[in-house]
């Protein structure tokens, strides 16, 4: 699943913040178990065709067998032959997601959605109204359980990065608070394996292990300059994350300076054929979020992380701001085509230079809506009713095809 990114101005002062990372547990599988009592307590895999599909979600009952999401279906069924395979029902997931986000919004407007089932909340200013952050998280999880009938986990910390790791550890159906205070975040991370850090997949973990680094603490103890020499410009960033340094604010889409989606692949991908559908899907997601936030972008950025961890970003500026996914994709694909054919571990598309789509002042000589506008309105309506994956373009559908 793609990991979206949001960025905004760094906070003016490093006042202690309270960030909650709320993450639904095995979201699609939990919705299926909620709606079909026969599935409760049984190993459930949500996904498509056994030959070519991938696992979209795995219930906690099937995880001890080693089944994980994004794994090829065939492999999952070899690991857990007794698993019940359920076809995805995107409309049900979209509906549940909408209700969850309504509950989150009741606590703070500073809610940054990461996907259908995951969000950051900055509750720093909500404390006076709603109490301690851990109490807020507990209340949110109880309301989600009572009103939507689904389990959720939460991590509470002073920065996003730590909150996200904490919610991972709290799963399933739990919550974990990392106390604020100097060094608390770093101390919490130190004993954990480096693979817990955001952006470190199995390959990076392997590479670090070769350097004698297994825990996040090992990483934090290194000299950032030497890490930079060994891992490239990303090295310092990695070290900062290991030290729980994460100044990124929680930015709702509406106020975001940029809206992006990125994805780290299971295996490095090379060549336009393989990369284009990924970039296309990211562009469509970004455009959908732009439209939901009522924004348009003047700049498109393509981000590539090569197998050697080097990150390249390439931007293109449009003559007219857009919220059309195909337009974003055309620009991103053109940027991609100009890059040398290295093996790539991550691609990301982000929309920047954002302006309101509909200025409040109406015009006398308003241009008629374009074909793209009309089409996008129809696509959004379908996605709202049947879920984000219900309708997409041919190349992406082929990539995820399950028949």
């Amino acid at each position, binding site marked *: 699943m793609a990991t979206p990114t949001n960025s905004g101005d760094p906070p003016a002062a490093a006042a202690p913040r309270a960030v909650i990372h709320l993450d639904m547990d095995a979201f699609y599988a939990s919705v299926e178990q909620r709606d079909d009592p026969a599935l409760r307590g049984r190993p459930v895999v949500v996904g498509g065709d056994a030959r070519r599909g991938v696992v979209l979600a795995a219930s906690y009952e099937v995880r001890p067998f080693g089944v994980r999401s994004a794994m090829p279906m065939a492999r999952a069924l070899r690991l857990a032959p007794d698993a019940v395979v359920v076809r995805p029902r995107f409309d049900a997931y979209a509906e549940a997601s909408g209700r969850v986000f309504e509950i989150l919004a009741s606590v703070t407007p500073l809610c940054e959605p990461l996907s259908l089932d995951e969000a950051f909340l900055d509750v720093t200013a909500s404390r006076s109204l709603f109490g301690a952050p851990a109490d807020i998280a507990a209340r949110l999880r109880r309301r989600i359980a009572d009103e939507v009938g689904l389990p959720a986990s939460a991590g509470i910390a002073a920065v996003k990065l730590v909150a996200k790791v904490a919610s991972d550890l709290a799963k399933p159906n739990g919550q974990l608070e990392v106390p604020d205070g100097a060094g608390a975040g770093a101390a919490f991370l130190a004993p954990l394996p480096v693979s817990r850090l955001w952006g470190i997949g199995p390959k990076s973990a392997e590479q670090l292990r070769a350097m004698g680094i297994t825990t996040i603490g090992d990483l934090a103890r290194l000299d950032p300059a030497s890490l930079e020499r060994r891992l490239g410009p990303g090295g310092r960033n990695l070290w900062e994350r290991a030290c729980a340094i994460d100044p990124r604010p929680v930015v709702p889409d509406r106020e975001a300076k940029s809206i992006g989606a990125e994805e780290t692949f299971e295996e490095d991908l090379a060549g336009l054929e393989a990369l284009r559908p990924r970039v296309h899907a990211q562009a469509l997601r970004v455009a959908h979020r732009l439209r939901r936030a009522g924004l348009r972008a003047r700049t498109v950025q393509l981000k590539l992380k090569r197998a050697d961890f080097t990150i390249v970003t390439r931007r293109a500026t449009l003559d007219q701001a857009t919220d059309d996914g195909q337009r974003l994709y055309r620009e991103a694909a053109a940027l991609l085509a100009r890059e040398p054919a290295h093996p790539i571990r991550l691609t990301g598309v982000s929309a920047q230079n954002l302006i309101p789509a*509909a200025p*409040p*002042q*109406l*015009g*006398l*000589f308003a241009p008629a809506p374009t074909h793209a506008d009309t089409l996008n309105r129809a696509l959004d309506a379908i996605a709202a009713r049947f879920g984000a994956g219900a309708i997409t373009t041919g190349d992406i559908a082929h990539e995820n095809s399950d028949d």
Partner: protein
Amino acid sequence: MEFKIRKEEFLRGLYLAHGIADRKSTLPILANVLLRTEGKDKLLCGATDLNVTTLVTLSAKIEKEGGLTVGARQLYEIVKGLPDDEVHFRRTEQNWAEIRAGKVEFKVVGLSDRDYPKLPAIAEAQTFKVETATLRDMIAKTIFSVSLDETRQHLAGVLFESDGTTARMVSTDGHRLSKVSRPLPGGPKLAASVLIPRKGIVELRRAIETREAPVAIGIHDGNFVLKADDVGISVKLIDGQFPPYDQVIPKENERAFTVSRLGFLDALRRVSLMSSDKTSGVRIGLEKGKLRIESDNPDLGAAREEIDIAYKGAAVQIGFNARYFIDLLGEIETPEVRVELAGELDPAVVRPGDGSDYVCVVMPMRL
């Protein structure tokens, strides 16, 4: 070059020239005013930004013929501050200007007048004498709604039409539009409408701001030309397609009412104190017998004012930029104005109460 000139006379020319001289141009000499003697008793004082040109013929006592250019703003400020009535101007070596008045003496760096671009031949233009007050009134009624967006050339000016008996000016910034028609007997008979850029309109207005006697206007070689005695202004017309303005002026709106112009204007000024600085958004609402203007802003507070009117139609509430109404109401002289509203996304129309041929259209804003 050397001349003597009365301070007030010199200032009259420099005032018009320094408004046009272009300090931001890539051609440094365009920031200068061009001074050139003519005969024994005339001084030509000119400036251009290559689009707008002014040429004023001043009375002076020429002692030695020649020409020079000097920083327009600088010279204007210098002469304005001089104590004495008579100014003595002399060109010295290396294009320096020496300016003396009484016991004050300035030496200013200039540039040779030979390097100044050739100015349009204003004197040659065929022009037509018209009422200055009418022209001034038409400019005032349209200049405020000209687009300030330089990238939208076709909206960055006032449309001018004239058939020899009637003239019309129209302007729009895309959000609002003003259109005025007035009898202008003796005016030029133009085959097509022309588009006069905003900066040119500003200079034309400046040149006739206090004038009583008629002025002569005409179109010559792609320029709008105005002559008022010894003042000549030439404005290069915009080569662009003005939007089809008649289509966006609603023929008739069902929700019409008449209201005191000053009452409406004051209410808008008061209520907009509580609207955001950026958008000046207010809600204008109609119900039986009442016009209501409201504003609320989560950061500031709220305001509301009601005016009694004779209105019997359906209730409606529409958001508008108060600034747009304040601008146009300031240009109407009649004690009452007639306002027409329609739906939430439809334009408002305002006309003077006396039925004269002036109409302003304002698009709503979403609040």
